[in-house]
């Protein structure tokens, strides 16, 4: 199953690089990839635009979805996701704050590329920390308190973001793209930020998989198995927060992916996190690559439906597709699961 999913991911990523305003054949993509393109614009299209963007899509989709898988098991709640514990909202607020404060300085757009991911990651980490600390009582935290606190913190952060959107005036467009999640104009600069975060998170993920496997059996059972349950919970949450904050910091608050990815993965491989986490990452990567492929196709000029490009010439954000497709799909999963 995992091998098949890995193969599927490679196929959709390759298709992603082939398709676009100009469709490249496999041979042309191959030549561009090995840096022997016949024309300069092939090389630029493939190397400078499509390859970094598809890598970011795959990586951030994998991170967001595996973060959701960790959260769902450690909080023992099928509705847990980065967006239900406030991490997404915290990261989005961080990004929006950075955007708002740099709008004044004209020509600072290049700096933005560096500043925004940092601000967003910090925002996500801060939100996660606040939720954990607020949930802490004498004996530690518990899943229900964490979720309730997370929902409240998420709502509070969202309202601050809404306020910023209202006062942002003419820049509302680029802020909303952060709220929804977008991959347009993402390039190597962003990948250079995202890849180290992922590399940092990977050993953490490997370490917390067995802890989460034990902890998802309940606090009593995990203590019986010799786990320091509160410490394990803190570690697992931290890992999930790092994954989600890193992903959101580059792509924005992509709706539903952190919720649906793990659910879909669970129907494929079950709840053992050794498989579930890998599967969630693959599913998340496939979904976001496909969704962004759709977003790009619908942004093309030859689609004669309506002009869905915004004033500033930017494209349909990928988050709009995950929300549009994700919501009904999630309902379908729930109905199927009940049978």
């Amino acid at each position, binding site marked *: 199953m995992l091998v098949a999913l890995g193969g599927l991911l490679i196929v959709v990523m390759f298709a992603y690089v082939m398709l676009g305003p100009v469709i490249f054949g496999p041979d042309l993509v191959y030549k561009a990839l090995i840096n022997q393109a016949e024309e300069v614009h092939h090389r630029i299209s493939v190397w400078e635009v499509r390859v970094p963007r598809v890598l970011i899509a795959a990586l951030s989709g994998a991170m967001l979805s595996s973060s959701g898988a960790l959260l769902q098991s450690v909080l023992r709640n099928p509705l847990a996701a980065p967006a239900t514990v406030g991490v997404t909202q915290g990261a989005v607020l961080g990004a929006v704050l950075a955007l708002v404060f740099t709008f004044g300085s004209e020509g600072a757009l290049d700096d933005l590329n560096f500043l925004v991911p940092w601000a967003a990651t910090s925002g996500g980490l801060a939100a996660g920390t606040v939720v954990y600390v607020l949930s802490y009582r004498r004996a530690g935290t518990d899943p229900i308190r964490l979720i309730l606190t997370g929902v409240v913190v998420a709502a509070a952060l969202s309202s601050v973001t809404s306020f910023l959107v209202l006062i942002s005036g003419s820049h509302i467009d680029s802020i909303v793209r952060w709220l929804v999640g977008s991959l347009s104009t993402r390039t190597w600069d962003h990948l250079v930020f995202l890849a180290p975060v992922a590399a940092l998170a990977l050993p953490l993920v490997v370490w917390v998989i067995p802890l989460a496997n034990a902890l998802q059996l*309940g606090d009593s059972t995990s203590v019986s198995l010799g786990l320091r349950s509160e410490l394990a919970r803190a570690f697992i949450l931290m890992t999930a927060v790092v994954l989600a904050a890193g992903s959101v910091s580059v792509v924005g608050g992509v709706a539903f992916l952190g919720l649906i990815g793990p659910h879909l993965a669970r129907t494929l491989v079950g709840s053992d996190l050794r498989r579930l986490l890998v599967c969630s990452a693959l599913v998340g990567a496939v979904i976001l690559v496909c969704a962004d492929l759709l977003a790009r196709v619908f942004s093309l000029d030859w689609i004669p439906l309506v002009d869905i490009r915004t004033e500033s010439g930017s494209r349909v954000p990928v988050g709009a597709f995950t929300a549009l497709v994700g919501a009904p799909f999630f309902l379908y999963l729930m109905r199927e699961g009940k049978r």
Partner: protein
Amino acid sequence: MTGNPVFLTEGISTGYGRHVVSKHLSLSVEKGSRTSLVGPNGSGKSTTLKTMARLIEPLAGAVYLNGQDINRQPTRHVARQMAILPQVHEVPAELTVLELVEQGRFPHVGALGMLRRQDDDAIQEAIRLTRLEDFVHRSIDTLSGGERQRAWMALALAQQTEILLLDEPTTFLDVGHQLDLLELVSNLNRDRGVTIVMVLHDLNHAARFSDRMIAMSGGEIVADGPPAEVLAPGLLRDYFGVEAAVMTDEKTGSPMCIPYAPIHSDQDDHE
């Protein structure tokens, strides 16, 4: 008492935060024995077991496991000596019996060791003892109550400990599965010398499947000894509030009681 106690508490207080359940509770449990904690609701028997299991810390004093403070040693070290079957279980959706039972090896191989598939003898034996061979790849949430409790029992058995604590293990089971589980527990004690401490609601089961009954009421131990001594009409009247007849079951030789009327004391009416 003589012998070597696996559990020893001297004058501990138990409870949750500011809510004190027991004060000055002293008890010791002999190696290889079967002990049942019984008592009416709210008597403190489950709190006592949870404190012995280190699921909650004593408010004062210490629980000694094989001579060492249970809360002052690595919890994994304790987990290699003692397994617990808690009263309520969290069942993750879509987890198979085998994946559950595998987790029992956690205290032995550690976190990184658990990344590998565990399939040593302990798991196979736990599955065999609980007769779950046909269910290993079934998802736990598709099992019946009795099968499910056996799966959790198998998890505890896979830990291969010399002590097993059970908190009302028969509560949600029908009578056949109740006897089935208690017989399994007794066999573990008889064949492997596993020390058993369990909280039981059913007094007749406690009398039949243990060597020693500890009756609690209001956080205190009110009777302690062999079932034939503890299970007496006076105890049932004073602490359980029932008029009961106690006799010897001819088939099993153990004492049994038949409660036939609740007592409505004046004291209760005024409370």
